[in-house]
């Protein structure tokens, strides 16, 4: 009984910790993004002097793959968390990613600096996650609508959202930043400063998610809910509140992923998230459906395979087809994914 009280008191600190965590993340982003602003002038010189050197194609693609994998991980970790806690394969997650880019673009257009725009996008993404869960998903859970039915609801949501985003953003491509990328050369590979910031932000944010899941009470509660919601509920964890927080996290992480993806690809449009939706599913399934760190491992594999395969493929536009093939192959030989527990899934 005393333990329960203790837990109850601790429970009041949950929002505080979340706030602290978000502040830390934002602070980290600020610090990191301040550095290359000074370095960029230097970079131009470096790039000029070493413009003649050839980069190694394989290593360069490996690096691109890791970068893309990290971005994918950031975008898909929410997908994995939602699957783990609610059993829902959320087909509208791609639109969450696009929404981040769209919100940032709207903020930039209104005159906000890029960093502020990114923060606004992350906040808007979190708000959209909260709104969705309040208005839609929690109601569906209350009505005991099966996860498969919820999946079709998410398909409907994706259809509605992608078209509303198209009405909002228009059909043309948009750019978040008009600055021209310079590239640093490190031996056989080259990388732009913007990409380096993106990678750093990804690593920090993913680290924060990992810390949250492993070290905080709420994170442990999240893992307990994903393990067995009924048992978690019986031990005094408020399952619905955990799921609400997972939705908020998922929305804001996807939005951050969307912003970084728009910067990485240097362009975005209303279907940017929809294009990577299946890559996210591939990553999450490959890593182990619902496994908290599966998304990271799976994303890195997907990113590296997609980029490195362009070296060997007859035409580079087949790179996503290779990922789809890999997904099917994974389910054939190891349906539980790389990190998933072996269980009976049939």
């Amino acid at each position, binding site marked *: 009984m005393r333990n329960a009280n203790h837990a109850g008191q601790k429970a009041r600190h949950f929002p505080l910790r979340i706030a602290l965590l978000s502040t830390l993340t934002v602070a980290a982003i600020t610090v990191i993004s301040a550095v290359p602003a000074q370095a960029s002038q230097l970079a131009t010189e470096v790039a000029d002097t070493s413009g003649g050197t050839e980069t190694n194609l394989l290593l360069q693609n490996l690096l691109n793959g890791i970068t893309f994998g990290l971005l994918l991980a950031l975008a898909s970790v929410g997908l994995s968390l939602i699957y783990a806690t609610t059993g829902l394969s959320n087909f509208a997650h791609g639109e969450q990613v696009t929404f981040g880019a769209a919100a940032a673009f709207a903020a930039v257009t209104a005159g906000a600096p890029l960093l502020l725009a990114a923060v606004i996008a992350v906040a808007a993404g979190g708000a959209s996650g909260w709104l969705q869960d309040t208005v839609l998903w929690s109601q569906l859970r209350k009505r005991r609508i099966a996860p498969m039915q919820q999946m079709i609801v998410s398909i*409907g949501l994706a259809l509605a959202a992608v*078209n509303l985003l198209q009405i909002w953003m228009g059909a043309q491509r948009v750019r978040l930043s008009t600055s021209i990328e310079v590239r640093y050369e490190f031996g056989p590979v080259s990388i732009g400063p913007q990409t380096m910031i993106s990678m750093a932000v990804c690593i920090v944010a993913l680290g924060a998610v990992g810390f949250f899941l492993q070290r905080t009470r709420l994170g442990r509660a999240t893992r307990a809910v994903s393990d067995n919601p009924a048992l978690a509920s019986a031990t005094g964890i408020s399952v619905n509140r955990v799921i609400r927080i997972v939705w908020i996290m998922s929305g804001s992480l996807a939005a951050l992923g969307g912003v970084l993806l728009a910067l990485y690809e240097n362009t975005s449009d209303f279907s940017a998230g929809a294009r990577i939706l299946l890559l996210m*599913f591939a990553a999450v399934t490959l890593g182990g459906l619902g496994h908290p760190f599966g998304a990271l491992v799976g994303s890195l594999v997907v990113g590296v395979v997609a980029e490195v395969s362009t070296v060997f493929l007859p035409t580079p536009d087949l790179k996503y087809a290779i990922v789809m093939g890999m997904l099917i192959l994974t389910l054939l030989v190891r349906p539980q994914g790389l990190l998933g527990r072996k269980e009976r899934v049939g």
Partner: protein
Amino acid sequence: MDINDILQIIVSPTTAAFALAAIGLNFHYGLTGLLNMGQAGFMLIGMYGYAITVSQGGSMWLGILISFVGAILFALFLGWPTLRLRGDYLAIVTIAAAEMVRLIGRSQWLKEWTGGNTGLRGNQFKGPFENLSPFQPARIVEIGPFSFHTTIWWLMLVGWVAVAVAAGLFWRLNKSPWGRVLKGVREDEDAVRSLGKSVYSFKMQALIIGGVLGAAGGVIWAHGNAVQPDSMGRVTTFWIWTMLLLGGAATVLGPILGSVLFWAMFVFIKQLAPLVLPNLAPQQIEPLALAFVGIGLILLIVFRPQGILGDKREISLNV
């Protein structure tokens, strides 16, 4: 507002093609409970199989044969790893495989056969079918409110006959012992297994039949339009799902009613939108209509999962 446009879309080959694909999905989902999220992939396989054969000089019948064989092989390829697994695995694999077909089709790699991302033009494969048309000479014929070219009349005739045949097939198989086993699989796999039936084999048969119907729908769609890989993406599969769930899964006429209502409402919203919202730019009208499709799908699942004709007791989505 032009009521004729709505009437024209209701009888159009596109509606027939989607009705066929939805009947195919009804075999998967309505009868067996399989979550096939790649029906557009089956359509694409069908239209590629047909159009490539014909454009490379094969006959129409060979084209149809190859298109069906392609769909059968695709079903075997999809079902083999996943039909033993939980339902959502089939959903992810089918959607991934359909996407793979589209990506390979639109790739520059096989451009010689598939035409790359622009696909195959109608004049490369429509010839043999249009030459069979009994409606000669070729001209525009008006019957009541419908005014079409004779080749479209011919296509519509074949398309709707195919829909009727498919619906008849569903009606007959649904009542047969075979259909009852499938419904048993849908309701309780283990119970069927304990009766000594091979669940895997029955699921595979349903996947193949539905897939072949999807391929047939694809061939008819290609005749009404052209082979375009990008118009057979994920979203197209979602439309087919909306049609099936709208009309009522596990019913004979549900998919047909769903397809007719879907396209009629689509055209209706497109015509209504500029009247209600005069500020809407022309290029925003279609996305708005499609957004309504999504919202409609959500409302359908939440408030009437059995659709218009369906029976709520029969269809529970607990896969």
